[in-house]
Each structure stands twice: as structure tokens, then as C-alpha cells.
């Protein structure tokens, strides 16, 4: 159960924002943790050969890291009973010459949350997430439903 009182919420209200950074080491870690070893997420040559600009983040990394804002706001990650998104733009993760791959700052993902809908009967709040890289949306219709 979230710590916030449902009755105090208003549609359009911000739940705040945060940023997450992702480098190649983060993608290797996510690949291992999730079991998704598609080489487009860790091998530059392969990514280019299949027509991508380079290595891109797992869509599920972006989706998974963005929802933490909602888990923390709700106070209980299990309060997120439904979570969906469309992946519209790849998140490129560079490997600049001379950088240390494990501590390079990487790509910054911006995450903002707003209450998009409230259902008083079901006691749920829909949080709409705006997830951007360099000002461009990388997730569309990213919505998390929180049970109160």
C-alpha cells in the first residue's frame, strides 16, 4: 500500500522527476541480469551490420529503470499493478575513444511523472511517464497504474 493518501491526489499533478545514466557496462549488467543477450546491446560491429547507428540500450532497461520513480513515490514497488510502454526511439549508448568503459558517464535518460488519471472506485492512479534522451521521447504511452 502506498504511503500517500489517495484522496489528496489530483489529475495533472507531478510526482517529480529523476535522471538515469546508462553506459555499456550497464548494458552488459542488464543483459546478464535479464538473460537478454541480443548482441545489438553490446557489440558495435553487429549493431552496425544490422543497420543500427551503434549499440543501443535494451528497451527493457529503459522501461525498467524509468519505473523506479513510481515505485519510490508509491512507497511499495508492488503497488505498480500494471505498467506498459511503446518503444519508439532507440537509446544509443556511445563508447567514446579514450573513455573508461566502466565509469564513462554514458547517456542520460530523463524521467518525469504526472498523474494522468484517477479511478476513485478502483482506488488506482495512472502515472504517465515522460522519458527522454536529449529532449526526444524514447518511450511513448509509458503508463504505470498504482493501486492504493
Amino acid at each position, binding site marked *: 500500500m502506498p504511503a500517500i493518501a489517495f484522496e489528496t491526489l489530483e489529475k495533472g499533478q507531478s510526482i517529480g522527476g529523476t535522471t538515469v545514466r546508462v553506459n555499456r557496462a550497464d548494458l552488459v549488467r542488464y543483459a546478464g541480469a*535479464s538473460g537478454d543477450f*541480443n548482441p545489438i546491446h553490446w557489440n558495435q560491429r553487429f549493431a552496425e551490420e544490422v543497420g543500427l547507428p551503434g549499440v543501443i540500450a535494451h528497451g*527493457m532497461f529503459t*522501461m525498467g529503470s524509468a519505473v523506479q520513480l513510481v515505485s519510490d513515490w508509491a512507497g511499495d514497488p508492488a503497488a505498480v499493478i500494471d*505498467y506498459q*510502454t511503446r518503444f519508439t526511439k532507440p537509446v544509443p549508448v556511445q563508447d567514446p575513444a579514450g573513455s573508461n568503459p566502466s565509469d564513462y558517464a554514458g547517456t542520460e535518460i530523463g524521467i518525469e511523472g504526472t498523474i494522468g488519471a484517477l479511478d476513485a472506485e478502483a482506488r488506482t492512479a495512472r502515472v504517465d511517464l515522460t522519458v527522454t534522451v536529449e529532449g526526444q521521447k524514447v518511450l511513448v504511452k509509458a503508463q504505470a497504474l498504482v493501486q492504493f
Partner: protein
Amino acid sequence: MSINPALQGRTYPAGEPYVVGREKIREFAAAVKASHRAHYDPAAAAELGHADVVAPPTFAIIVAQRADAQLIQDPESGIDFSRVVHADQRFTHHRPIVAGDELVAELHVDQVRAMGGGAMITTRAEIATTAGDPVATTVSSLLVRGEDQ
């Protein structure tokens, strides 16, 4: 079209159970940079009423993608994994996933449709405990890019 259209409506039965480990939840939470204590500390999870550390909202992708692998590896599917792009994803949780759960996933191919030179395939994994209690429903759409895309 890069996917066999006859796949639509097909169901792949649940395979071996996936046993949710406490360390796996911690590892996955760290990998998505989720810092909520309920993912790491059983006492913090217990304060929220959970039997053990609680999985992040997207953890079920591990179970869902293992189920999807049956389809991708099915020689009849015609799917070239290297040309797969994740188009959309949804998780609906019927109850939280916690360490110690033994999960099985039945995979349903809900839709196969042509998209330009490629194809879009929508799969649904119905995740339940080995005792048969529903845990989560995941829906994924994968775009398989055509040779010219």
C-alpha cells in the same frame, strides 16, 4: 513476410518452472538501477507485507522472454532474432512476485501481421505459480524487420 502467419493463435505450454531467487531479484533490481529497499532487504519487504524481497515491476520479463524463446527457436516461426526489435511491452500484475516463487508461463501468440517489409508479432505470457495461481500477464510486440529495413 518474415514471420510464419500460421503462428497466430498458437499456444506454447509452460516449460520447466522458473524459481525466483532472492539474489536474482537483487541482481535485476541493481541492473535497472532500482534502489527501493524492498528489492534488497527482506525486513524492508516484510514491513510492506511481503513474504520476501519483492521483484521490480518489470522483473517478469525474465520469465516472459524465456517463454518467447520457445517461439523464436521454433524452426517453423521463421523469426531471425538478429532482426527483432522490441516494439511494446505491458505487465499486468495479479499479485507481487517475491523470492521463493516458482513460476510457469504459458505463451500465446495473439497476433501476427505484416508491417511494411517486415512483420509484427504479439505474444502474451500467462505467468502463474506451479500451484496454478495467476501471478502476471505480460504482452510483448516484437517487430521483425524485413531484409530492406
